């Protein structure tokens, strides 16, 4: 039996677990530089996680099993998604488990439970976060689907491995539809991963929180799992974007050199993605909640334009 795909699978999950926090650390370091502050270093997220894992859990009196189950589920979906997205290699045994639509739905189930956990304690903040998160998600989802649709037109597939392989084989060069879809995807990623201008991951100001409001009551290992999962989510969305729009370098053959090169390419692309993210986040201010309709509406419009340009120009 060929062990290579299984080794790759395990390697990918390990990389996800390890690099997720470093990527967030990288973004924070860049942000500090951009804003003229001194940073806490690349490894600060690790220290945060270690601190949280070593603490005891403090749980609200009326927390139900949903509140305690959610962190594990959120963590589980993120890890499973890491086994499906081609991060290092397109030859994964789990790749066929899910296409892009299933992947989006996997993130949706994590969000569903996080929102329920927000409502579980019965605080005003929890409910507020849940309500806003679900609103943002419902606006982001159609735009996400249109972007996927545009990309699947060229590859005739929604399976990530096939989409990546097709782009790598050079059959689809830079085309207008891809540019539009990429722009839409970036806007959606900002919304889905809770970055500025949609949500501010660093805030604990009451009225601007979305994601933080839902997880306010978490502590100890529960909070650690949720934080870790949200770091992985940022990494995964970036990896998803890379796999769909710029997969060059991802290994498609069972070859040690190719895998090493894939790892190198991945780090390089992540570095660039971090710079782009920081430029966006530093350049923009957080939007009012009801301006988000325009923001996500333009994402939808861009994706639709991409589809139209595919039919008209290509």
């Amino acid at each position, binding site marked *: 039996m060929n062990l290579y795909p299984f080794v790759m699978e395990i390697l990918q999950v390990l990389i996800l677990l390890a690099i997720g926090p470093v990527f967030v650390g990288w973004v924070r370091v860049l942000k500090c530089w951009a804003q003229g502050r001194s940073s806490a270093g690349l490894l600060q997220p690790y220290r945060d996680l270690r601190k949280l894992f070593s603490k005891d859990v403090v749980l609200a009196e009326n927390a139900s099993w949903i509140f305690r189950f959610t962190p594990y589920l959120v963590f589980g979906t993120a890890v499973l998604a890491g086994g499906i997205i081609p991060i290092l290699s397109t030859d994964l045994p789990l790749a066929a488990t899910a296409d892009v639509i299933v992947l989006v739905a996997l993130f949706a189930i994590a969000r569903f439970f996080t929102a329920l956990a927000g*409502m579980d304690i019965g605080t005003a903040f929890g409910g507020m976060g849940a309500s806003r998160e679900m609103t943002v998600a419902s606006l982001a989802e159609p735009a996400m689907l249109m972007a996927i649709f545009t990309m699947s037109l060229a590859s005739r597939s929604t399976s990530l491995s096939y989409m990546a392989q097709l782009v790598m084989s050079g059959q689809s060069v830079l085309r207008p539809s891809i540019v539009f879809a990429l722009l839409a995807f970036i806007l959606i990623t900002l919304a889905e991963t809770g970055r500025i201008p949609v949500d501010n991951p660093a805030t604990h100001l009451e009225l601007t929180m979305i994601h933080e409001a839902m997880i306010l009551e978490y502590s100890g290992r529960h909070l650690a799992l949720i934080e870790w999962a949200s770091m992985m989510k940022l990494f995964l969305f970036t990896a998803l974007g890379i796999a769909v729009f710029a997969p060059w370098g991802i290994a498609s053959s069972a070859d040690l050199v190719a895998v090493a090169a894939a790892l190198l390419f991945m780090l390089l692309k992540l570095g660039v993605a971090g710079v782009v993210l920081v430029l966006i986040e530093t350049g923009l201010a957080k939007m009012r909640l009801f301006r988000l309709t325009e923001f996500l509406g333009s994402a939808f419009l861009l994706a639709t334009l991409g589809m139209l340009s595919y039919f008209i120009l290509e």
Partner: protein
Amino acid sequence: MNPGPIDLASISVIILLCAPLLVSLLSRSQRLLIYSGFALTAAASLLAVFAGAWTVWSGETQKLIMLIGLPDLPFHLRLDPLAGFFLVVIGLLSFFVSVYSIGYVKGFLGKRSVTSLAIFYCLFLAGMYMVVLSDDALIFLISWEVMAAASYFLVMFEDERIENRRAAFLYMVVAHVGAIAILLSFGVLAGLATGFGSFSGYTFDAMRSAHFPTEWATVAFLLSFFGFAAKAGVVPLHVWLPEAHPVAPSNVSALMSGVMLKTAIYGIIRVTFDLIRVFPWWWGAIVLVFGLVSAVMGVLYALMQHDLKRLLAYHSVENIGIILIGIGLAMIFTAFKLPLLAALALTAGIYHTLNHAMFKGLLFMGAGAVLHATHERNMEEMGGLIHLMPWTAALFLIGCISISALPPFNGFVSEWLTFQAFLLSPSLPSPLLKLLIPMGAALLALTGALAAACFVKAFGVTFLGHWRGHHRPNVREADWPMRIGMIMAAAACLFLGILPTLAIGWMDAVPQQLIGTSIGTSAGAFGWMWLTPVAYQRASYSGPIVFFGILGIVIAAYLLLHVRPGAIQRVPIWDCGFEKIDQRMQYNATSFAMPIRRIFGFLFNVKERVRTSQQTVHKAFPKKLYYSLHVRDRFWGWLYKPVIAASFWGSRKVGRLQQGRIQAYLIYSFVTIIVLLVFLR
């Protein structure tokens, strides 16, 4: 002769038609009536499921001619894979609900007699099975009316309340307007099949073998679509649904919403794919557009509700929309001679039909359990029930996840298949359709995401947090028959979610019968674990891996983190350090939906009023705040009010004829006879 599935199905119907006799004999001992009556319907339902599953499995068609009815017009029955599939859908949920009813109906003991409930329950089920089995227009319409009338009396069950009587009347009116359209449609088809001179065209067989001119076929299709849409609750004919479903007893709401609406879906499929067979693509476009509008409007209206059962009723509108999307796409693909894609879209549609029956039945049963325990339908008064009703909460949650189209449960699979059908639409030859149909996919995505938001609200407000009401009732968990009914439905949701290949392989005979192609072989080409609807390069999904993968990681993480015993300390709520939090400060159903109400407000008729009391130091510190919010269906004002006003106006005018004097009436009769003699010699 060996007994075939159709004999089993007939026995099931006969049992259900005879059960009312037994029930009325037992009306003196109500408790025995409940046990024996609902056990009997459960048994009959199982028989129907068995007959249906057998038919779909073997792919064979059986017929039966009953020499009763009008002279020379015998009743025809037929059990083909399509009918068998719907028999399974109806029978399966009826079985679960019958078990559930044993517990639920006991709640009425000592309050009112349940004899009429049990009688009409049996007739209602019998009517639904007969609709599916009938093979001529006559018995179809008779069964259709039995079903409608029985469900009317079920909605009327608690008839001392004015809202029940109002809802039942509205339901009756819409059902009959629909039935007239269906009757006319069959009239057109029967007339064209054999000419208007003979009666033999009333059988479906005669219609199948006929060739219809396009314009008349269009008339027949539009009439029947209108009629079935009225029954299915397609926007804008949906207004009866959120009135009638909430006021009916919950076991009946589960059946009405879960399976009665599906008989209309059955009707649409039967008339278009089986009786008319050849149709232009724009029929499919009509179905698709109405499906999309229903899906989006249904879920948006659902979000605005704070009555749990009303919310679920609006979700039926949404899900009927999703089913129609699948069927509409199948019709478009069929018209363009793309049978494989049509089979995919049709499979998506009927799979969602089955799934919706399971999860909506489950959700209504859960809502019934909550109603049974709290005597409350208003979510704003509930909260924290997960601590008091752990079983109901967990089962209701499974229903919520399924209906929100989240993996690994069943609602996701059928919506995913619908998406795949959408993604294949670029292979259509028409450029306009290529551009427009993907927009439908975006609307479907919007629907799915809004449904998730709505069920976070429904579950969160009902079961989580603290009790919101002023006085706290003595809440008890549902009893075992109710729990077992819900557990079975939940298990079906999970099974259909993680093993879709088996289900699709089984229901393969339906697209095979109607379109001539099926996706069973390609969908299950890589074994039971992988669902690959067209080809594995195109898209694939593995329910078992998603389910067991997440479960495995969750268990592993849990065990790893519990190696070192860590104490859990229970403390009061922190809430960012705010003090004096009370349960009235929680988010409730209205506040949860506020952002969405504001974004999509133009679609509703929203009347929001805030008033502050005057006696204050400063206007920034009012003593009391009065807030009122009314969200109404715009269609009521646009479509129904004018019709109601016009019919009242018309009846007032006609009422003038009514003099109350015998002389006047004799003159009317005389004039009528003269006119008839002159014109119709």
